[in-house]
């Protein structure tokens, strides 16, 4: 039975980088990993494929001439083997500003299920890398019953990312009540100073969540991204590679189910202010 993991977080926070590097670190241990990018821009798996962009599930179904053919796409055409045998797939979607990308995610994941892609690959881990915020029902698809069982939210010390994480917690609470995905923890990205660490810790405490790993800013990571690879591949001996190995090990074993306690926006704003005051008083230096 595959461990199905959904990774959410504010747009641009580094979800795809974290998910790809984590996938690579899990695969390094010999497990079969599948990574599915749930974003119309379809670049989640790029660094697992040496920078190659693959045809998306929805690109492929576009080739269908009839409604009947539309739902009978050959899954072998949309799954690609990447670094260390990681199975990569991208949902894809419409061009910006047209159509319904949310519906696209629903259709793409339903298609993968209907066509038996998961049975065929038989992965130990499935990682869903989902677009920014839960903007509509379609992007909540991986949260729903029977898809991603465990959800991680990527945050940073940036207030806007915490705001997005708070909103995501609301969605998780809603779907969790219906047997959908449960929150497993927060992953803190771009954490290089004690102050940044303190901010995400405070946020976690307030929302009754837990930060499972802190990922510092790293030159190797930025370079490997440019190269179209993960640090596990391009800089396996680096410190940052070890951070991802540690994160991968935690994700592989983690069973905790967190019921988050998201707050209303004004309350969050108030917390932001008080957090700043505490930081100033405690004298934590950058």
């Amino acid at each position: 039975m595959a461990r199905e993991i959904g990774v959410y977080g504010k747009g641009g926070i580094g979800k795809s980088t974290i998910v790809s590097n984590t996938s690579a670190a899990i695969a390094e241990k010999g497990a079969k990993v599948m990574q599915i990018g749930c974003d119309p821009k379809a670049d989640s798996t790029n660094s697992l494929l040496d920078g190659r962009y693959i045809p998306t599930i929805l690109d492929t179904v576009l080739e269908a001439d009839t409604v009947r053919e539309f739902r009978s796409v050959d899954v072998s055409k949309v799954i690609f083997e990447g670094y260390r045998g990681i199975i990569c797939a991208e949902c894809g979607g419409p061009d910006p500003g047209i159509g319904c990308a949310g519906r696209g995610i629903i259709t793409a994941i339903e298609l993968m299920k209907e066509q038996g892609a998961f049975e065929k690959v038989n992965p130990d881990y499935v990682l869903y890398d989902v677009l920014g915020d839960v903007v509509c029902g379609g992007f909540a698809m991986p949260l729903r019953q029977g898809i991603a069982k465990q959800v991680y939210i990527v945050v940073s010390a940036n207030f806007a990312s915490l705001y997005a994480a708070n909103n995501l917690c609301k969605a998780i609470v809603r779907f969790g009540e219906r047997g959908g995905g449960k929150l497993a923890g927060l992953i803190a990205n771009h954490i290089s100073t004690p102050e940044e660490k303190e901010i995400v810790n405070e946020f976690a405490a307030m929302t009754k969540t837990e930060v499972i790993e802190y990922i510092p800013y790293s030159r190797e990571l930025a370079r490997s991204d440019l190269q179209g690879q993960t640090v596990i591949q391009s800089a396996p001996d680096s410190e940052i590679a070890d951070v991802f190995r540690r994160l991968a090990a935690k994700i592989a074993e983690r069973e905790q189910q967190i019921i988050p306690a998201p707050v209303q926006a004004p309350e969050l704003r108030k917390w932001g202010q008080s957090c700043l005051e505490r930081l100033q008083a405690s004298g934590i230096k950058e």
Partner: protein
Amino acid sequence: MKKLPLEEKVAPIRERRTGAIRAYMGTARQLLADIKSGKLKACDRAFTNTWTCSSSIMAGPIRMATVSDGVVIMHSPMGCISNLSQFLAPGLQPHEETKQDQGGYTPNQPATYYCSNLTEEEVIFGAEKKLRETIIVADKRHHPKSIWIFTSCVSGIMGDDIEGVVKETQAEVGATIVPIRCEAFQSRICQWGHDSAGHAILKYLVKKPEKKRNDMINMMASTAVWAEDRIHLAELLGKVGIQCNTVPDYAVTESFRILSEAACSVALCPTWSDYLGKGLEQEYGIPYVRDILPLGTARTEQWLRKIAVHCGKEEEMEQLIKEERAAVMPRIEALRKQWQGMKVFVSCGITRSLHLPHMLVNDFGMELVGINPFEFDEEAIVDLENLLKLTGGKDFLVHVSDCQTLEMANYIKKLDVDLFLGHRGSVGFIFKHGVPGLRVGVAYGSRHGLRRDMDSGRQMGFSGVLSYARYLDNVIKNPSFSEKLSAHTRLPFKESWYEQDPTVNMVDPL
């Protein structure tokens, strides 16, 4: 009057623009007091028997498909157009007589409508291209003068840029493209669809007036005002040299273009024409007559006089009124003696529930015990006040409901009604309760529930009163239909329902 936002893409929903409600139970006085004080409660439903779609029904693919030189395109999955095929399945031939009315339709001419038939793929990737192709195909095949595009909930959620497509495609086709934006989930008042249509007609079709015509009026009548009535009124006005430019049903595209040139607009269905009539007043200064409908002799007189003033035909009109009255009044006097005091209930759209009683009370001497308009709004306040004047201040029941038969069944027997006049959606259940009555209103292809002859449903103008009286006479003399029907029908409601409060499902606005 609040300015209509014609610069916007979409008409404001009716709840917001006119304060429309779809549920109420009380008396006329209570309703007036409540609506004026802004203290309306329980004016929506938590449970509903009936519903209809603002876009696919009310905005009018059904209506605009009758525009003989137009083509309708529904931008939706197939289901949204299913109502249209159902309504128009018998074809348009039952209305062939409207040929005389509008000069447009020929007998047996089929309605021309398309559906963009959105598939899953198109929902995901957008269907602007398909809409564009549909427009071009429709234009090439039929060479229409107008192409009416109706949006749907799905196209609304996808966010297809309909106006953008229209702008892009207009230069390539001969027809004028009229996009009607109506995503039905926006409003709880399905009549909002009428506003969407009026909004688009004003924005895309009505041209700047080349001349002002004192010899032409706009007669705004939806299908519920059937052909015989429209033809009769047009003939009547024709006698004094006034032409009727009738929209929307069975009109031609040019009828919409020249709406701006008329001496005035008259509403035969104020619910339908509310937006268009006011828009023409706002944009082109064309007076809009909505409070008086030619139902009953007194109201017909007032109606004709009002039109005469706008057209400068007062003298000729007085002569006409005199002649028409002389022909019908003696016979109406006789009827009044027979029917004096008969308790009548009217259940229909605004046109009939708030205006037909003028004929029933004034001409036939009947007593109004209740009305059941489909919706009610601030525009209709004056109509209800007029009805109270008509009854001499005697209060009556007002049940605002769009054919909610469950609620009507609950109270109809307790009301002691001698005659029930209702829409086809409600009469069946009322007849089954043994209440004698008649169906008011006609639908495409099914002219009338009980009689199919041409003259049966006519109500408007002077002779309409007599025509309708003949029709009423049949059922008043012989109520055996409802008697027999009720004797042999098992009703679906439990006895306990009749003891409950019929307003249990009414809630504050959702």
